[in-house]
């Protein structure tokens, strides 16, 4: 399902950019195309990159005792954006983009008294406090609109910063607990030991928030005439979980670095 949806959106995006280019090409003769754009202070760019980072509480709550493993996974992003330069020297501008991206990570951590619920397929749940190992897998796809202020530092260097708004199309937040004990249903409940091969899985995918936003800041460098390389830090500012989700007692945020290259038309 997810891949299908991504492919559909990719195709739609490709069509759009293709259409835009076709328009440019036909416009080239009529309106002197890019020259017209340039005169009106408009730049177009197409970007591809990877997201590396984590979905993490900030600061790490005292429940998390150690991070024992981390794997960023392959999280790709593609983006089309347009920059409107505001002054004649084209120092200052605003950029609006549309980015299709995945944010993912796998972690292993040791926790102490970590609030959790184990769900079963019949709708039943076992709540408690977990002390021991936790594996977490996060993978979410977003349609993101960044709205950025841009500043041209030099001919080759640009820096940008501003908010972004994301719509989560598909999200997975799941994992398992191992080697430890569950205190159920609360701090004064019974202890249940998990040893060796005993694991319990959890899945909070349905509790992820659809609308997420944050700020991003970064820079890009013109490596070659049309080729740019960029790095942007994206810092989520609202909890990835819905308001009424209390199983995980702390808020978690998406903090990812997007690095990649782009083509400037």
């Amino acid at each position, binding site marked *: 399902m997810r891949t299908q949806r991504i492919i559909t959106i990719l195709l739609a995006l490709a069509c759009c950019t293709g259409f835009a280019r076709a328009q440019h090409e036909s416009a080239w003769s009529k309106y002197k195309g890019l020259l017209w754009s340039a005169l009106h202070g408009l730049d177009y760019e197409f970007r591809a990159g990877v997201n590396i980072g984590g979905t993490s509480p900030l600061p790490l709550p005292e429940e998390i005792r150690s991070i024992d493993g981390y794997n960023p996974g392959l999280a790709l992003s593609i983006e089309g954006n347009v920059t409107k330069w505001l002054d004649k020297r084209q120092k200052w501008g605003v950029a609006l983009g549309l980015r299709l991206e995945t944010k993912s990570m796998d972690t292993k951590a040791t926790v102490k008294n970590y609030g959790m619920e184990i769900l079963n397929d*019949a709708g039943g749940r076992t709540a408690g406090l977990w002390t021991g190992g936790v594996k977490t897998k996060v993978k979410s796809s977003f349609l993101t609109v960044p709205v950025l202020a841009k500043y041209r530092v030099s001919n080759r260097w640009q820096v940008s910063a501003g908010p972004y708004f994301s719509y989560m199309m598909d999200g997975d937040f799941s994992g398992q607990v191992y080697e430890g004990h569950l205190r159920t249903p609360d701090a004064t409940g019974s202890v249940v030991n998990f040893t060796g091969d005993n694991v319990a*899985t959890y899945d909070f995918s349905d509790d992820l928030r659809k609308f997420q936003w944050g700020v991003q800041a970064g820079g890009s460098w013109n490596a070659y005439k049309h080729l740019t390389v960029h*790095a942007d830090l994206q810092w989520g500012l609202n909890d990835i979980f819905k308001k009424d989700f209390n199983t995980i007692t702390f808020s978690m945020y998406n903090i990812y670095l997007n690095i990649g290259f782009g083509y400037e038309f």
Partner: protein
Amino acid sequence: MKRFSLSLLLSAILFASCIQDEAPNVEAAIDGCNGNGIYSLTIDNLAKTIEVYVLDDDKQQELLFTLPEGATIQAATSAPGDNPPVYDFSGEDIRSFVVTAEDGLTTCTYRVRLNKLILPTRYGFETLKQPAPYHIAYVGGEAGIIEWASGNPGFQLTGMGFTPEDYPTVQIMEGKQGRGMRLQTRDTGSFGQMVDMPIAAGNLFIGSFDLANAVGAPLESTHFGFPFTRMPVRMTGWYKYRSGGETEMLDAGKPVVRDDTGDIYAVLYEAPTTDYSLDGDLFPIDGRPINEHIVLMARIPKTEETDQWTRFDLTFEAVEGKTVDRQALAEGGYKLAIVFSSSIQGAYFRGAIGSTLWIDEVEIECE
């Protein structure tokens, strides 16, 4: 590109340095208890009660509690004869103990009762100690009670018990006489699959169920038996049985597909220490011999399928090469385990979902 790897490195350092100081533990509970002269013990973490069973009249009882890391325990009101871990029960049979978590904020009060009880020998399953979330039947009366233990607390973990009737072991209104018990092998859902325990047989036994081991070492979670000082001769009672159908069992370690059957038995066994009890592995299915401490055994040859109350009358027979030392018997050196199960290999998570054993009016006849 150097800049990128640098920022990656920086963020890694940032995350690593973010681990906060360890907070004091919030857990406050009694996870276990033992002590000199304790023969049996039932901890009820729902009702926050502990029943301690002893055989002598000594009211100075040693209680060594197993607590969560950092937690402390104190008698709610001190008695003159208290000298922890020895507590004075001469004034009252029930003492309250307050557990305080390491954080000093979470507290929990348990009522500990010292029982000097003789196991009754007639069981009608008429009364419940606890009606929800699952049934707990008991024997005894004013002087104190002995719980009929079951795997119900373990089943609660699966999240499959929405009502008390969903649990494997329940009391029913229509017994042979008055109320009775129904044991049914249940599906443990996705939780059970996850921990390799796809079924939960309905079981009922004199003893205690240790939830702590229910997932990690399930055979060790059932503690069968209660001190018994008389010579048992027969176990009688009434049952009905319905098999859930074919299931894969082990016969001396070899897999065989058979119709599921239930199990009804009582064993008298030597207790090398007062706190020793048989666990779920007393009749191994992998070819090992039965538990070496078993001396007398009364076991139904087969629970025949029937929807009519059917009488069973089982004679205690000596295990080959074993005899009962009468003096040791009188002094509390033996324990009696009475066990019912809807699936004969249920302890090993083998059994057909739906297998049902109804039991009522059980009696142990003694010399």
